[in-house]
């Protein structure tokens, strides 16, 4: 019975608000926004502060250095093991008697549906809108390097997960920090785990939630005309509530099935647009390479392009953040390292393929204003971003780019954005919940508390304007990366041992294909 009252309450509330409140709506938006910006401002500035005397944020260096270190330490495993990763996903190495357990493909698809989202559509538009075409180059590079970070964290996620008597599992950085540090006789594992869990909860409210509902609202408003964000927020909050609290599996299941097709449709359409403008491909790549090293006149020059590219790649594929380690840890496998191999495909699909498509379409359809005389970009009046063809930014810029080729695509994109946003929220509600239960223990009331707070942030996210939301999203997620990567440096010898053992057995034929 309690479940029924739970479900009805927000619905009745929303109906009341919808009829009573249109007059106060705009001011409510502004109010929420103002409070939000003041509350999160100092934290955001700290995370994105520059190295003293430079304009290079330390957090971006932190991520890229980590990805580079892992790439070198594991001998560029992302390229060496790429074919083997594909064979694993295809099920070539899966024992037919294990059918019915979660397959590598399913783990990958679920983890991907958590990362493929608005970062790929809106985030990339923000990156090239500020960092210019050159940001694309750095984004791809960061994606390729990030594959090694993902490999490291997901292997550890599976190796040190908790398995319970009832057959369920819980895993993620919290668990490998505690168990892995204990195994290596290092102090501080528990402390790191708690710190990570706190940031993970904040990240699940930010990038995994508020940013999603914010951009979903932006896209809906862009297509169907402007209206107050709190309405979208409320609808989203109620639907998310129904799924994660009410256990309405059908919605989640439909989303999980439609999202991959949306992803394929998105990449397919992007490819068609790129081919339609094939005479522009050379120019576009010229701009990307030139912009990567000169900046083409954007604010901050080459470093500006690099920072935007790296930032977006990290935000989109979450390599080094530790979230994927939570998603992958539930897989049944005798070899934790196989999950590492599978997970390294994620940044590739997410960043190197999908993000690059978005960037190419924006560049190739001429959305960024370029002065034909000098070949440099034209900045907006404030000098902070590049002027676009119709003045749009974020998801609206992507929408404008796709619609310039196919007018109807804005509607497809609106649906895709809503579904991507939704599936990402569902994934992040799970990540956040795992961190929450790690801190506070499992139990119905405790879990319900988290879920209700999560839904409140869904609502706030749509009402706040893009600036403070995207900054807070980034800050929270990057904070996870600070703690996670710190731990990975100490635990990477364990992964290396696993890797050598597995690869030598693979070579000797001890590990062989089924069928």
């Amino acid at each position, binding site marked *: 019975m309690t479940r029924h009252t739970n479900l009805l309450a927000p619905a009745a509330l929303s109906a009341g608000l919808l009829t009573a409140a249109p007059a106060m709506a705009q001011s409510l938006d502004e109010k929420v926004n103002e409070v939000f910006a003041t509350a999160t401002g100092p934290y955001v500035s700290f995370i994105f502060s520059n190295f003293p005397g430079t304009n290079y944020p330390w957090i971006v260096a932190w991520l890229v250095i980590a990805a580079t270190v892992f790439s070198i330490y594991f001998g560029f495993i992302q390229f060496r093991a790429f074919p083997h990763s594909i064979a694993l996903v295809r*099920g070539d190495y899966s024992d037919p008697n294990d059918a019915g357990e979660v397959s590598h493909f399913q783990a990958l698809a*679920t983890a991907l549906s958590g990362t493929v989202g608005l970062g790929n559509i809106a985030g990339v538009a923000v990156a090239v809108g500020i960092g210019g075409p050159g940001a694309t180059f750095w984004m791809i590079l960061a994606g390729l390097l990030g594959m090694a970070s993902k490999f490291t964290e997901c292997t550890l996620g599976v190796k040190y997960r908790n398995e319970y008597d009832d057959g369920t599992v819980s895993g993620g950085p919290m668990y490998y920090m505690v168990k892995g540090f204990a195994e290596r006789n290092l102090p501080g594992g528990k402390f790191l785990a708690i710190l990570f869990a706190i940031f993970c909860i904040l990240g699940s409210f930010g990038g995994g939630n508020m940013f999603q509902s914010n951009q979903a609202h932006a896209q809906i408003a862009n297509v169907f005309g402007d209206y107050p964000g709190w309405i979208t927020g409320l609808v989203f909050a109620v639907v998310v509530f129904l799924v994660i609290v009410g256990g309405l599996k059908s919605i989640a299941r439909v989303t*999980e099935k439609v999202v991959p097709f949306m992803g394929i449709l998105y990449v397919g359409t992007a490819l068609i647009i790129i081919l339609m403008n094939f005479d522009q491909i050379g120019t576009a790549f010229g701009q990307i390479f030139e912009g990567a090293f000169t900046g083409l006149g954007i604010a901050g020059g080459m470093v500006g392009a690099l920072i935007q590219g790296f930032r977006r790649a990290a935000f989109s594929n979450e390599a080094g953040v530790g979230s994927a380690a939570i998603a992958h840890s539930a897989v049944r496998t005798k070899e934790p390292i196989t999950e590492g191999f599978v997970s390294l495909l994620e940044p590739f699909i997410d960043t190197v393929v999908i993000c690059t498509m978005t960037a190419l379409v924006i560049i190739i359809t001429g959305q960024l204003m370029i002065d034909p005389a000098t070949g440099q970009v034209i900045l907006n009046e404030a000098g902070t971003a590049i002027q676009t063809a119709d003045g749009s930014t974020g998801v609206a810029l992507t929408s404008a780019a796709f619609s310039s080729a196919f007018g109807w695509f804005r509607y497809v994109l609106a649906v895709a954005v809503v579904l991507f946003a939704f599936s990402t929220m569902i994934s992040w509600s799970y990540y956040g919940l795992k961190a929450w239960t790690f801190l506070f223990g499992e139990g119905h009331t405790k879990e319900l508390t988290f879920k209700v707070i999560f839904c409140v942030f869904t609502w706030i996210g749509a009402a706040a304007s893009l600036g403070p939301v995207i900054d807070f999203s980034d800050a929270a997620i990057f904070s996870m990366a600070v703690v996670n990567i710190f731990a990975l440096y100490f635990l990477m010898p364990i992964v290396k041992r696993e890797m050598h053992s597995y690869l030598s057995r693979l070579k000797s034929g001890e590990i062989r294909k089924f069928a």
Partner: protein
Amino acid sequence: MSRKIVVGFDGSDASRRALDFAISRAKAQGDSILIAHVLEWSPYSFLTPNEIEERHKRRQEELTRAKEAIIDPVVKTVEAAGIPVASVMKYGHIAETLCDIARDEGAALIFIGRMGNSGLSSRIFGSVAGTLAQVAPVPVTIVP
């Protein structure tokens, strides 16, 4: 010579008819019966993070339920008829998995029932009986 008959069994009326027919044939020819229960499963379907976490537990539950509710009662029936019987439960694509079972077990025949759908759905999605008739490694008996 005693041969092994694989009977695809899912508890439906159609599969019961197939089993009854298999019992009568086995009696007449001195064959043994292998009751095969396949749980439809694709490694390429999509799951939510929650479903992934609970999958191992659910799988155990599904297998236990299938064994208790579907397999065990009919195994007794076949034993009572005095025919050597064994059972197997697997996850996978139903027709393909039945073929795999027949091949692995060295079976001589596959018996299955059919639902008798002649409509649009079986035209689009195909039927287990139709697929088996096309791809089975051994003779297939389809019981109406």
